[in-house]
């Protein structure tokens, strides 16, 4: 499938997460107004950063004088999973110029990557993920703009109840991974167990992420070696 057709396919199949992202965008717009962000600032942030979790993290510290170091650190920490998303796409963006890959990676997004693994082998994954990202970007900008404009209407509502919406959306992606995976989910189960253990001993969030991912990685390596050994042996 050509890159442009794959991109269109990405846009067409992004409906589910378009709606989920829309919800977060409205919430972000409302939150942005509450910390004093101007409309152009909020929209510029959405268009350039394009990261719900990172932007919400930055809002926590959005007060004069801006603590640049704290904002940088928190955005980097919550965006660290992008490293892993990028690594997972290593074998799937071949056949494109370096320039195109460098530019289009700006639109790398979680649901696009997760769903790209469920697509047929003939699809162009860079096109697909980018098309998905274009759709997410439109949803993110449009919904933030709406949130900014309706903030005065919902100021009296308590949005705290839906703080947990982020983990719910991540759970939907995890389920797509679980159901679409052709290999055993052992690395993810081990990651979860390690994350729980580290949480229980009071480890910091970045240590939980690091320990959990490293342990999952080790299990994935062992699983791959065992599969290779059984293939060679059989």
């Amino acid at each position, binding site marked *: 499938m050509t890159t442009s057709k794959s991109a269109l396919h990405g846009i067409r199949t992004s409906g589910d997460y378009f*709606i989920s992202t829309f919800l977060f965008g409205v919430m972000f717009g409302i939150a942005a107004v509450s910390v004093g962000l101007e409309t152009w600032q909020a929209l510029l942030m959405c268009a350039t*950063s394009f990261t719900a979790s990172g932007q919400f993290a930055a809002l926590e510290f959005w007060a004069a004088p801006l603590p640049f170091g704290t904002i940088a650190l928190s955005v980097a920490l919550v965006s660290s999973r*992008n490293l892993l998303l*990028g690594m997972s796409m290593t074998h799937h963006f071949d056949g494109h110029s370096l320039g195109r890959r460098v530019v289009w990676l*700006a639109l790398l997004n979680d649901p696009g990557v997760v769903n790209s693994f469920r697509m047929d082998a003939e699809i162009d994954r860079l096109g697909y993920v980018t098309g998905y990202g274009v759709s997410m970007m439109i949803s993110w900008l449009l919904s933030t703009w709406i949130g900014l404009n309706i903030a005065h209407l919902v100021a009296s509502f308590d949005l705290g109840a839906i703080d947990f919406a982020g*983990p719910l959306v991540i759970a939907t992606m995890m389920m797509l991974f679980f*159901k679409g995976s052709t290999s055993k989910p052992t690395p993810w189960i081990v990651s979860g167990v390690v994350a729980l253990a580290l949480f229980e001993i009071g480890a910091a969030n970045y240590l939980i992420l690091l320990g*959990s991912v490293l342990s999952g990685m080790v299990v994935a390596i062992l699983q791959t070696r065992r599969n290779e050994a059984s293939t060679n042996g059989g």
Partner: protein
Amino acid sequence: MVGNSSALWAIAMMAGIVYLTRLSGYFVGLQLRHIRGIQPVLEALPGCAFMAILVPAVRQGNPSEILAMICVILIMWRSNNVVLATGTGMAVLLFAGPYLGSL
């Protein structure tokens, strides 16, 4: 009130950091791709990161949040319908929260 120039610098800094995380993961992967059998390992990584976020969130969740998570998992298991799963989870958070919060 944050000044325009400070805000612009902060927004530019955020955009740079996020873009670097997206770019550097891919290029680190390119350096590792010659290792035999690395592809399934790299492809397992996003799921590991999701688990590292999900498990602590559920562990410290209140009853309505745990109920919402169970609903999301069950609906996704049965139907793969992201909108239905997320919508149901959100409805549980909004409407069951006041009743379950005190448990």
